[in-house]
């Protein structure tokens, strides 16, 4: 009898382990994408008539985290706090070229994590400087390399952005609903970057809200020498007019979106503390 009892207990433990495994298996795979949209992949005409194409748009991402926020995080509400029950963190830093691929390329898969099932209706990430002295990205969170052309004038430009930002966003807004993760399934979230906010959109009227707040490309073109412009924020603060500088620093925090949904941006200083 003791042997039979031991056998029974072992079977019980085996079944229990299986049940526990089943209970813990309520996870799926959450994929994080970065998207510079067609503006970056295909190029576009700025609000002031410069046809811009991009060779590379490097962005350095870290702290990428999805949340099951409750109440749903509303970034437009200045008083809103991100309160969440579950978070899924993509560990590490990722240097992504948003211009990678051809003009019809899909958004770039940054990484994926196993995550508990549920509705991930909020997303945050940081843009921080690369620390690699051998890299062209050293010291920059964002590096935009491209060509602009207008009336036969061609400018090869490189714009470096040193400023760090934290973007905290609500639910994705777009053609499809994202972030609903079921067990043993896949769901995705997207970090979207709107570069038309910086250069404006020539297809929109000049008095469109987007164009009124965008610096455009003309202020940068005016700084080019022999068809070449290599500059960064530190230099631009000295080079740009006060009005253009204000437009630029005001608009850069609005780069980050979730699809067409807006995010709350926080500026970080070099040591990672909240500056504003």
């Amino acid at each position, binding site marked *: 009898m003791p042997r039979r009892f031991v056998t029974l207990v072992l079977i019980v433990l085996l079944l229990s382990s299986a*049940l526990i495994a089943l209970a813990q298996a309520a996870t799926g795979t959450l994929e994080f994408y970065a998207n510079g949209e067609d503006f970056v992949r295909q190029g576009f005409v700025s609000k002031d008539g410069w046809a811009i194409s991009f060779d590379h748009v490097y962005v350095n991402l870290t702290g990428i985290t999805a949340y099951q926020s409750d109440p749903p995080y*509303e*970034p437009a509400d200045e008083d809103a706090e991100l309160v969440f*029950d579950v978070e899924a963190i993509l560990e590490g830093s990722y240097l992504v070229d948003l211009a990678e691929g051809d003009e019809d390329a899909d958004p770039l898969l940054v990484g994926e994590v196993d995550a508990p099932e*549920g509705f991930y209706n909020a997303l945050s990430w940081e843009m921080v400087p690369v620390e690699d002295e051998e890299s062209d990205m050293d010291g920059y969170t964002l590096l935009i390399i491209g060509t602009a052309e207008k009336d036969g004038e061609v400018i090869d430009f490189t714009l470096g952005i040193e400023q760090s930002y934290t973007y905290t966003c609500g639910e994705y807004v777009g053609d499809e609903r994202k972030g609903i993760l079921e067990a043993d399934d896949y769901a995705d979230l997207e970090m979207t970057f709107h570069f038309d906010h910086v250069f404006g959109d020539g297809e929109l009227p000049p008095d469109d809200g*987007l164009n009124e707040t965008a610096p455009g490309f003309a202020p940068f073109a005016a700084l080019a020498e022999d068809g070449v412009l290599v500059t960064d924020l530190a230099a631009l603060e000295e080079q740009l007019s006060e009005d253009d500088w204000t437009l630029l620093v005001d608009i850069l925090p609005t780069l980050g979106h979730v699809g067409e*949904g807006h995010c709350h941006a926080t500026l970080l200083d070099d040591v990672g503390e909240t500056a504003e």
Partner: protein
Amino acid sequence: MIQRPITVLMLSGLVLILLIGVTPAAAHGVEITYALTPVQTVRVEVIVHDLAGEPVRKADVTVFTPEVAPGDAPAAAEAELSPWLETSTDRNGWVSFVPDPALAGSWQIAVAVDDADAHITLPLAEESGLIRLASDQGISVMSSGLQVTVAATPITTIQVALHAQFDTGEAMDEAQVVVYAPDNPQDPFLTGTCDAEGRYAFAVDLGRPGVWEIQVRKAGHGDWLKIDLDENAIEFEEVPVDTAGDADSTNTTVQTVRLADEVARSVESDDGLSSGQIVLMSATTIWGFVGTALYFSRRRAATRPESESDN
């Protein structure tokens, strides 16, 4: 004095509550205001069969408001006029919708699947503020390859009338609207388009309580509006109705709430099991199995001597 109890009962449920919520504006943001109004309307059911009588699943059903002239649904579809609703039939060939009660007139329904299509005019008449099917009979249309039956059942529901604009004050005309019912966050309840003033209205299905989620977007800007029809301080108020059924006295209460305070907190969230719950559940299960094993072991031990003595 009450003469028609059923009518009075229905009209007593026809309370008027106006709720206005505002999503806070963001830089380059979107502002959505909305009003909720209980209304008497109809639920329209469309059933599509092939000519052999088999239900047709995944037939495209496109609905146009009375702004599209009767018989013009095909032309409207070809001209890519914005439909009020785009949906498809389920595996029973069935789909239903609740038309905007403010828009009495001839609604147009276009049904298409593969090479077959059909077009139906749905006459919805207004009478004493109520909307109903103008004909007492349902409508049945047979066309090339399809048989479409349309019926309209009176219901009381809530109309959501939203107004979307950019924070500059510019109307989000022709903005895309996608509505998700509380019990199905994956598949749209309906999709539609704002009018030239950025307005859109639809009626919810009160049989699906909870948080209704509405996405409005245009030209790279958009936002979500979330309306909790369980907890949104909707107070149904009995409205005195005279014997003539005069509904003019329904202008009773106007109530204003902030979206962030009253709505946003109630979105459903599937948290799964916490680790504590898993441990407790596992312990309970293990104890159940162990207990069962012990029970049978004791029982077998107790009965064995008798079996042996039998031999």
